[in-house]
């Protein structure tokens, strides 16, 4: 569709952002990136352990996607700000997927540290994509400090539980005027379609694709799902009703009464 998602002034033709974590090999990842049709992939930073850390970059260059550096693993605003700056130096981009985690078991964001880090990074000129929980108030505050998008979770990272609270996502979509990208929790295609139907402007997912039995096939599924959900949102779905509404008229039903019918036909 000619329906780009614009974030921080950049128009993206795909509304799917792919996280690169969890792929069993760099080749599997490359095929998944291509199949997903994404324009943006997330990348993390860790201590260099071999002389050629570049193979991941080679894949990214070959596939022509943009890098969204993340701050995975940070627990404080101060640490996240520094990791964001490392990402800016490493990849020469001011984009950052801001993660500030509050608990290692749930990997849920810490609202106080997250807002603090977001404010510092916006002031420092970053285009901030914060990974947040599904609290509409926090989303509003992240928007008010100048984040380029908000990325609420559907459920915990890697849980595959989908969207546990669709109402909060719908409320977030109503209350902020920046892009809303569902981040975390997607397990399968219908979850991604639902996210878009709820009004999300995009979906970010990693494990759902990279840890699927067939990552390339799942990446293709997600590409279709995001398009399907976006179109369905705009097409104006029918209302829900408790009872049925016939799709065939009763007018002009033929009278076929005969010996082998019991009269209810009339």
């Amino acid at each position, binding site marked *: 569709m000619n329906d780009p998602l614009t974030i921080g002034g950049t128009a993206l033709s795909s509304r799917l952002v792919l996280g690169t974590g969890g792929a069993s090999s760099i080749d599997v990842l490359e095929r998944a990136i291509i199949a997903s049709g994404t324009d943006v992939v997330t*990348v*993390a930073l860790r201590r260099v352990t071999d002389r050629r*850390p570049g193979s991941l970059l080679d894949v990214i260059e070959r596939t022509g996607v943009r890098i969204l550096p993340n701050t995975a693993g940070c627990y404080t605003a101060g640490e996240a700000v520094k990791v964001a700056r490392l990402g800016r130096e490493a990849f020469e981009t001011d984009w950052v997927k801001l993660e500030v985690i509050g608990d290692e078991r749930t990997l849920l964001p810490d609202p106080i540290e997250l807002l603090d880090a977001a404010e510092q990074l916006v002031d420092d000129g970053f285009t901030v994509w914060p990974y947040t929980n599904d609290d509409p108030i926090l989303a509003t505050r992240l928007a008010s400090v100048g984040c380029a998008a908000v990325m609420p979770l559907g459920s915990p990272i890697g849980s595959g539980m989908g969207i546990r609270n669709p109402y909060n996502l719908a409320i977030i979509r109503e209350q902020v005027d920046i892009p809303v990208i569902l981040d975390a929790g997607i397990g399968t295609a219908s979850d991604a379609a639902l996210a878009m139907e709820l009004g999300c402007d995009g979906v970010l997912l990693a494990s759902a694709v990279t840890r699927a039995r067939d990552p390339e096939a799942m990446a293709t599924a997600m590409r279709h799902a995001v398009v399907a959900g976006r179109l369905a949102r705009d097409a104006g779905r029918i209302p829900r009703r408790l009872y049925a509404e016939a799709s065939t008229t009763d007018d002009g039903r033929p009278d076929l009464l005969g010996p082998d019918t019991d009269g209810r036909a009339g």
Partner: protein
Amino acid sequence: MTIELNGQPRSFDGPVTIGALVDTEVADRRGVAVAVDGDVLPRSSWDTTTLHDGTKVELVGAVQGG
């Protein structure tokens, strides 16, 4: 002169710049970044910043991450 690189001690004789250190560690400078004593060092300063005894250097590169 002994510095700490990614938590490990490293010794050099004579002055060394961050740029030189990076080049000894990785084949090319794409996708790597450096923090010196806890602060991020802009790429533009790598070749003009020299190590001192006890300097703590973090050298990081791209890895797969969600």
